[in-house]
């Protein structure tokens, strides 16, 4: 009798392998000091430019946290909060106007705490007011109209929406574009990637969303985890190539192994 549930052995093996590779990447970077050189995605570089643009124009940067509660899409929200932390630190340092809007009552206190902390860390606790982080509505379409009103009222110069979005995605991107704002986005869901592609000036796709925190911080530990991620991708790619070759030559060994 197998200890592992039938059909899930290969999944367990890959989970352990990927975890090991990420830990090795961190170990190599932090302990051995071999910090990988990482190309920063254009969307992360653009965040700094967007903050600069907001300062020059005297208009605010709007950061949208994405829809849904902490209990759903927790990993995506965690990635989003990393970018929020980085963005709010940037705006606090450069004295840019900043608004963070959220449609989720459970994300609201988290976003508020992170933004407040960024202002305190920058030595500007007075920069954070009760208007900085705004809960608008947990109804998707009501949130949509509230954000569009907010954009028009405040005449935002940049709109950042990285995380979990649904039908409101394209609407808010288009509303920001109408105002001439820079749109910076990020989505891992296939349904939302086309919206981001056409609506954003710069955007993160798929795993880049989860790695955004690492790209922002540029710390050895975070960069090491990116190395582990890349090695994991090479393993997946190798498996695809080997699997394709095996299948092309009439062997289903790889398919059977993956079903173990």
């Amino acid at each position, binding site marked *: 009798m197998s200890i*592992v*549930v039938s059909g*899930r052995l290969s*999944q367990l093996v890959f*989970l352990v392998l*990927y*975890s090991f590779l*990420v*830990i090795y990447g*961190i170990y190599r970077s932090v302990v051995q000091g071999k910090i990988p050189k990482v190309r920063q995605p254009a969307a992360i570089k653009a965040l700094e430019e967007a903050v600069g643009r907001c300062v020059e124009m005297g208009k605010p940067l709007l950061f949208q946290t994405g829809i849904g*509660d902490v*209990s759903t899409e927790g*990993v995506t929200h*965690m*990635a989003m909060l*990393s970018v929020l*932390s980085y963005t709010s630190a940037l705006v606090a340092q450069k004295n840019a106007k900043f608004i963070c809007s959220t449609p*989720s*009552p*459970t*994300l*609201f*206190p988290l976003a*508020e705490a*992170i933004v407040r902390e960024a202002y305190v860390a920058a030595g500007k606790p007075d920069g954070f007011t*009760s*208007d900085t982080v705004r*809960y608008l509505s947990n*109804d998707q*379409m*009501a949130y*949509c*109209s509230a954000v*569009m009103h907010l954009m028009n009222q405040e005449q935002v110069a940049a709109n950042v929406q990285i995380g979990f979005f649904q039908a409101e995605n*394209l*609407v808010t991107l*288009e509303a920001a*574009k109408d105002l001439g704002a820079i749109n910076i986005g990020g989505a*891992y869901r*296939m349904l939302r*990637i086309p*919206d981001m*592609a*056409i609506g954003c000036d710069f955007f993160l*796709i*798929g*795993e*880049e969303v*989860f*790695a955004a*925190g690492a790209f922002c*911080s540029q710390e050895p*530990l*975070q960069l090491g*985890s990116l190395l*582990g*991620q890349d090695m*994991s*991708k090479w393993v*997946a790619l190798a498996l695809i190539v080997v699997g394709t070759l095996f299948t092309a030559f009439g062997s289903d060994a790889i398919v059977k192994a993956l079903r173990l």
Partner: protein
Amino acid sequence: MSNILKSRELPIVLIWIAVLIIFGDYFFGGTALRTAFTVLTVDWAVIITNIAIIVGALAVLQRSLNIARRERTEKVERFMQTWTVFLAVSIFVIGVTLGIRSSIYSWVYNYILLPSWQTVYTLIIFFMATASYRAYRANNSYAAVLLISGLLVLMRNAPVSSSIWSGFQDLGSWVLDVVNLAGTRAIMIGAMIGAISLLIKVLLAKEKILGE
């Protein structure tokens, strides 16, 4: 006690316990793990989510009251914030005391909330349609590829397309089953590896959001 509750280690320990139970149940099964999994995902998930909602609701109410009390707030906004808080608290009290099936609560839902939602939804849907029309333009090479692919899939699904040219069916299916599927899988594999990496950093207490 308060030191333990405020410590960084406590959430990490709780995350470890949750991860071990969820992964243990998925990979190893067994009655004990199944029971622990059910308790965790059904009972505790509901409890924790509700606590998070209460914390969130209190934070939102506190913010509204702060804005309403602020001297520099305009009178209209002050009134709107106070009115919102009053309505929210009233509906909450009605729901808790009379129950969500009571006639008053149902009236509020059927004659205030539902029509409001439907009105907003209808207005936004029109904007969404025009936004899609304005946004889906071949501004660059990527957008052009997206637009052409979209048109091919649209023609595949449109009944009239087979009368125009029978090849639309095959071409649209090829875009969906080969090009789209390959791209989707590549992105999903990458995204899941990214999620695993994030989870590892959380488990090692190295994720910045947790105060590393």
